[in-house]
């Protein structure tokens, strides 16, 4: 029905396609077409993906489909939805493009919006994209059952809410015992002029292999503006808290349907879910300066991290230090753009991590005008006693509604973090062509 609706009058369609040949591994060509159609308050959409490989079976999939419409005071969505409850600890089904996270809930979502109260409910099955975008490994649907509800009371700059989520993994630890996690919590946030405060506290009961295990979490942030200076303090406490599903067969770890706000600011392996207590204080200063200090305590180690960043109109430069007890790191990160006039500019990006026993780094230098860009990317990775150097050429061109991008050479992999999610990204060697277009 959705496909039929979309075929009738497709008004917004985006196409992402890629063709790549990876040295020492495989060749791949893929396309992702997303189309949405709306008529009045009715909206329908679908995303189709197709991938062809030279060393394995090709596939085409209807990855996403949804139909949204109002029903009285309720906004209903049938099909695939992305959603989050509160600050995301109890349930966060939110796509994070940079690290290839794309899990939707395939089911029913209902939103009730009154003047002062919003209510969100959802129930369905976890539906990840069936090809891991970073490793291109096939990923089967876990079909974990997920339900969530949230109610928020809105005042003038103040929101108070309660939430609850339940996850029943399809894959069981013991065949005759249903595992599951039920979480309930409350949150509060206020933004009153120069002051801001946010807090979420959750408690959970997990049933794993027939045994009950409690968990608890608290996440809080506070902000205070004093003239041109702002102070922001964040804290996180987790005790046996996790919202896990079945095994992700592409990454060989369990799906994580909750996402605690990260205190980390860099691409450093964050502490896995488990017991931790941490805090971060940030001062936003005049002249684009920002200073931040963080400490996290876990059973395994104590982490102390501090950095200073200067943001200017032509770019930013940051310097940081980190101590994890057994290892230490100094980092320098920066990005810059030098406008040359007539739309031409020189660009540069630098990311370095100088650990006591290895070095990770990427530097990109390029030039661009309004429609085209070229760049050279170099990288170094000496972790685990290996010594690897990377060199790639990158070019992009805007043609009407399309952007063409070509990458040739080798690019450093390693740990990458985005939106509070961190994962290992494989290095790339070969040639890749990408076309993104929207009609």
């Amino acid at each position, binding site marked *: 029905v959705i496909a039929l609706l979309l075929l009738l009058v497709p008004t*917004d369609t985006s196409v992402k396609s890629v063709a790549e040949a990876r040295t020492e591994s495989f060749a791949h060509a893929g396309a992702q077409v997303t189309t949405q159609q709306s008529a009045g*308050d009715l909206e329908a959409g679908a995303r189709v993906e197709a991938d062809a490989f030279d060393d394995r079976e090709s596939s085409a999939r209807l990855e996403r489909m949804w139909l949204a419409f109002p029903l009285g005071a309720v*906004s209903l969505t049938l099909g695939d939805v992305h959603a989050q409850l509160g600050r995301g600890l109890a349930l966060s089904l939110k796509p994070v493009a940079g690290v290839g996270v794309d899990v939707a809930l395939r089911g029913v979502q209902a939103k009730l919006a009154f003047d002062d109260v919003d209510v969100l409910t959802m129930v369905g099955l976890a539906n990840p994209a069936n090809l891991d975008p970073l490793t291109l490994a096939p990923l089967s649907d876990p079909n974990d059952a997920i339900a969530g509800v949230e109610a928020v009371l809105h005042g003038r700059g103040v929101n108070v809410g309660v939430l609850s989520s339940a996850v029943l993994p399809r894959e069981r630890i013991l065949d005759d015992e249903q595992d599951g996690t039920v979480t309930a919590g409350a949150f509060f946030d206020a933004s009153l002029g120069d002051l801001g405060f946010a807090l979420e506290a959750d408690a959970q009961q997990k049933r794993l292999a027939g045994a009950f295990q409690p968990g608890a979490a608290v996440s809080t*942030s506070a902000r205070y503006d004093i003239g041109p200076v702002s102070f922001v303090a964040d804290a996180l406490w987790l005790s046996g808290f996790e919202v896990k599903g079945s095994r992700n067969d592409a990454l060989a770890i369990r799906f994580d349907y909750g996402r605690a706000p990260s205190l980390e600011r860099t691409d450093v392996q964050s502490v896995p879910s488990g017991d931790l207590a941490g805090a971060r204080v940030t001062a*936003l200063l005049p002249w684009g300066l920002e200073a931040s200090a963080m400490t996290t305590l876990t059973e395994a180690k104590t982490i102390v991290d501090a950095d200073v960043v200067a943001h200017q109109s032509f770019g930013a430069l940051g310097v940081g230090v980190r101590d994890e007890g057994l290892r230490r790191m100094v980092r320098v990160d920066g990005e810059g753009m030098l406008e040359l006039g007539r739309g031409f500019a020189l660009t540069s990006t630098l990311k370095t991590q100088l650990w006591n026993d290895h070095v990770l780094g990427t530097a990109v230098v390029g030039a661009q005008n309004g429609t085209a860009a070229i760049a050279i990317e170099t990288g170094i990775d000496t972790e685990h006693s290996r010594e690897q150097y990377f060199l790639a050429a990158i070019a992009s061109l805007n043609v009407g509604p399309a952007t063409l991008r070509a990458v040739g050479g080798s690019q450093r992999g390693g740990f990458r973090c985005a939106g509070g999610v961190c994962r290992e990204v494989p290095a790339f060697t070969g040639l890749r062509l990408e076309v993104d277009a929207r009609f």
Partner: protein
Amino acid sequence: MIAAFALALALSASPSTTARTVDGAQIKSSDLKGKVTVVAFWATWCAPCLKELPTLSGLPAETRVLAVAVDDASTASRIPSFAKRLAVTFPIIHDASGELRNKLAPGSDVPFTVVIDKRGRIAWTHAGYREGDGAALASVVRALQAEP
């Protein structure tokens, strides 16, 4: 059958979907029709976004501007401070769930700008921000405003 049922529901006088600004105001999707709307996706950690936001105040009169912050909970508390520093006067929505971004700018990095025409349709999108992009955006808006 389902489509006919859904269509009938859509045509009935029902409230539209809503979003909340960071100061608690409610914005209905039906409010977005009748005026050209510029939706700017940004984040407090995105340097080009912080350059772009102040320029949006200079768009032609009668342009509705919405800034959608995509910060997750680990940096969301900074949004009001940054809005104040950048002297942003237009409404800011915090897209905590990623729902708006997924709908209007799927898979895109920030900054990402979407222009919606008077009939509520996506008319133009642009990724990134460089000096001079503001002029191109203004001319797109003027052309859409001239449409009936």
